C-alpha cells in the first residue's frame, strides 16, 4: 500500500448511505482519492468524490479499477428490497451478478490491497431454532430459501471464494445489524414509520439495531484497520419489538402471522412501505448477534447502543398513540393534590416525586 494515500472505490453511491460514506472517506486525510461507482448518478452532493457511472454488472468495472489504480474496494451496493430496484429479478441481478462481476474485476486488479464488504446479519435467518446470540462461526439454522437473505448468503460465498483465490488481499466482511437512523430508508424503518404497527400475535422478537453513523464509522474503521475476517456489527443490547413500539408511542395491532404478511404485501404493492417477505421471520422470531469479535479483533466500539440508535430514529417521528402514558402522567400529576402532604404543598405546584415519574 502506497504511503502517498489510498484510492478507495465505493460501490452503490447513488443511495444515501453510500453517498455519505463516500464523502466521509474523502474527508479522511490518509485517503488520496475516492471513486464512487453506480449505475445511476447520486442524488445528493458528493463533494470530493469522483463519480464514475458504471454498472457493476458488466466488465467495465474492471477497467475502472485498473485505470484509477484502486487499492481498496468498499462494496456496499447490496439492495435489501425489491421495491427500490424494480423487481426481485433486478434486485437479484444487482446483488449477486453485480458482486460476481466486481469480485472478478478485483481478482484481475494487481494493485488491490483490501476489500470491505457490507453484509448483513440477515445471513443468520430467523427461526425458533436459533441460538440467542449468533457468533460469526455459526450457520443459519434454517437456510433462507429466497429473497435478500439468500442473496447475502450467496454474496458471502463468492467473497469467501475471492479471499481464497487472492490471499494477498485483506477481505473484511461486516455483517451489520438492521441499520436505523433518522434518514435511513429500509424495510425495517419503513415498518416502524407506519402509523399503526402490525405485529405477529403472541411473538415478541428481539431486535438489534446499528445506527447509520456507526455503520459509516465501522466501514471507515475497516478500511484503516489491518484486520481481515467476518465481523458482526451491532449496537449493544437488544430491544424487544413490543418495547420498541412502546418507545415510539405508536399503537400496535397484533395479527396472525399470515395476516401480517398479507398486510406487508399490500403495503408494498401500494408503495407505502417496503416490506420484505423475510422480514416476517425477523418480526416473529427475532435475532441477536454476538459482537465480541467486533470489539476484540476489529477493535471497533459503536457510539450508539441499540436503544440509543432507536431513540435517535424515533425522535422525529410523531407519536400516534401513547394515550395510556398520557393518562398515567395526568394521574401522576394530579396525585399530590388528592392527599396534599405538607411537603409537596410547600414545594409548590410541582410534585416532589414527579422526577421519578416524568420521563421526558
Amino acid at each position, binding site marked *: 500500500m502506497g504511503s502517498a494515500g489510498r484510492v478507495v472505490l465505493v460501490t452503490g453511491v447513488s443511495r444515501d448511505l453510500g453517498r455519505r460514506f463516500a464523502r466521509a472517506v474523502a474527508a479522511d486525510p490518509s485517503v488520496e482519492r475516492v471513486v464512487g461507482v453506480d449505475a445511476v448518478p447520486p442524488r445528493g452532493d458528493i463533494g470530493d468524490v469522483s463519480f464514475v457511472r458504471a454498472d457493476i454488472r458488466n466488465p467495465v468495472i474492471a477497467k475502472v479499477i485498473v485505470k484509477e489504480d484502486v487499492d481498496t474496494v468498499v462494496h456496499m451496493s447490496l439492495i435489501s428490497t425489491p421495491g427500490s430496484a424494480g423487481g426481485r429479478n433486478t434486485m437479484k441481478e444487482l446483488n449477486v451478478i453485480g458482486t460476481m462481476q466486481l469480485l472478478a474485476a478485483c481478482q484481475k486488479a494487481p494493485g488491490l490491497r483490501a476489500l470491505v464488504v457490507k453484509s448483513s446479519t440477515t445471513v443468520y435467518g430467523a427461526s*425458533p*431454532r436459533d441460538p440467542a*446470540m449468533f457468533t460469526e462461526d455459526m450457520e443459519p439454522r434454517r437456510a433462507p430459501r429466497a429473497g435478500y437473505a439468500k442473496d447475502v448468503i450467496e454474496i458471502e460465498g463468492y467473497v469467501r471464494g475471492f479471499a481464497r483465490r487472492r490471499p494477498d488481499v485483506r477481505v473484511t466482511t461486516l455483517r451489520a445489524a438492521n441499520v436505523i437512523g433518522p434518514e435511513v430508508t429500509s424495510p425495517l424503518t419503513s415498518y416502524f414509520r407506519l402509523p399503526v404497527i402490525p405485529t405477529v400475535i403472541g*411473538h415478541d422478537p*428481539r431486535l438489534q439495531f446499528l445506527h447509520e453513523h456507526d455503520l459509516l464509522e465501522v466501514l471507515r474503521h475497516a478500511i484503516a484497520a489491518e484486520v481481515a475476517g467476518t465481523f458482526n456489527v451491532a449496537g449493544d443490547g437488544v430491544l*424487544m419489538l413490543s418495547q420498541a413500539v412502546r418507545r415510539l408511542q405508536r399503537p400496535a395491532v397484533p395479527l396472525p402471522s399470515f395476516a401480517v404478511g398479507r398486510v406487508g404485501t399490500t403495503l408494498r404493492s401500494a408503495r407505502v412501505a417496503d416490506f420484505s417477505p423475510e422480514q416476517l421471520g425477523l418480526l416473529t422470531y427475532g435475532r441477536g448477534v454476538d459482537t465480541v469479535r467486533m470489539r476484540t479483533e476489529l477493535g471497533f466500539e459503536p457510539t450508539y447502543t441499540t436503544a440509543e440508535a432507536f431513540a435517535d430514529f424515533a425522535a422525529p417521528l410523531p407519536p400516534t398513540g401513547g394515550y395510556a402514558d398520557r393518562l*398515567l402522567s395526568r394521574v401522576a400529576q394530579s396525585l399530590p393534590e388528592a392527599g396534599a402532604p405538607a411537603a409537596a404543598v410547600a414545594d409548590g405546584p410541582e410534585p416532589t416525586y414527579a422526577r421519578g415519574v416524568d420521563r421526558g
Partner: protein
Amino acid sequence: MGDAEIIPIGTRGRPGRGTGKQPSSAARGLAPGARSASAKPAPRSSAGSTAGSTAGSAGTAAAKRSAQRPAHDEPQATAQVPVEHPVEPPVDRPAATTRDRAPMSGIPASDWLAAIQHGAREVFGEQWEPQLASFLAFLRRRVTGDYLVDEYGFDQEVTERFLMATLRPIAEKWFRIEVRGVENIPTEGGALVVSNHSGTIPVDGLMTLVSIHDHTGRFLRPLGADLVFRLPFVSSLARKSGATLACAEDAERMLTSGELVGVWPEGFKGIGKPYSERYKLQRFGRGGFVAAALRTGVPIIPLSVVGAEEIYPLVGNVPSLARLLGLPYLPITPFFPALGPLGLVPLPSKWLLEFGEPIRTDELDVGAADDPMLVFNVTDQVRETIQQTLYTLLMQRESVFK
C-alpha cells in the same frame, strides 16, 4: 274449577312458612323486633314509629309485634291474643327509607374520590401516596417501553412483579411445595440444575423457577425446546421469563456468564409419558447438558421433583391430531377434554423438590467434554442420582395429596 280450593302461596308479608296459618312460636322468635318498622305497618304502630323516630321503646316494639300478628285471612285483625314473649332490647337503627334518585344521577364524585383513596390505602398501606406514585412510575415505564431486557430477552421486572407473583400462591397454596437441599445451590456463579420432567404441561419448570427464586433470590434460566419458541404467546412469555433455546451455544453462553441454568434433559419424552410410567426417568437426551457443564466447568445440581406427575395424569394421546397440530403429543387426562377448560385445573398434589449434592466438573480435564464415554458416564451418574432420590422421596410422601 269454581270450587277449587285456593291455597295461598307465600306468607303475605307475615313471618311463617306460608301455610296461611299462624306461625309457630319458633318462627315468631326468629322474627326481629325491628322488622315491623320496615314491614307493612298497622296504623297504630306507624304512629308510634314516627313519634319515637330512631329508637322505638320496648313497649312500642311489643305493640307493633302484636299488631303484626296475623289472623287467618285478615292481615290487619288484632283480635289474636299474643303469646307472651320476652321483650327484646331496642334496635338502634333508623327506619329504612327509600329515596328516588334521578335515573342518570350516579354516585357523586366525592364518593368516588373517597373510595379510590380508601382503596389506595387498603392496597398500598398508610404511605399510599409515594407507593402509588412509584406504582404509576412503574406503569409508565412499562407503557413507554423504558425498561431493560438482557440479550436473551429476560425481563426481570415483569418476571418478578407478575410471573412470580402469580405462580407463588400456586406453589405455596395449591401444590404446597416443600423444598429441600437449597444449600446445594451456589449463591453465585454458574451452575446447571438438572431436573426430571413430568406433568403433561411443564408446570414443574415454572414451579422450580419460583421456588429457586424464593429460596435463593437467584433467577433460574430455563432451557426450552424449540417448540416453546415456535408457539405464539408461549414464546414471548418464555423469553421474558428468562428462558432460551436448549442448544449448546446458549447453554455455554449462559453458564459462562455465571447464570443459574435449568435443564430438563428428558424433554417431551418425560413430560408426555403415560401416567402408568410415572417416576420412571426417560433417556437423558444425548448428554449435551453434561458436555456444556464440562466445557464451562460449572457444577451440576441434580433436582428431583415429586408431585408433578400427578397434576395431569396422562391416560391417552391423540397422535394423529398432535401431528396435525405439530405438537409432540395431545394429552387426554381423566378431566381433559371431558370437562373442558375445567379439566385444565391441575390436581392439587403435594410436591417435594430436593436439590442433590452438586456434581463437580471443574476437576476434570479440559478435553473431558470431547470424551463421549466420560460424558455418558456423568450423564448416567446424574440420572441415577435423580432416580434414587425420587424413590426415596416417594417413600417419604404420605400420599399423593398430602
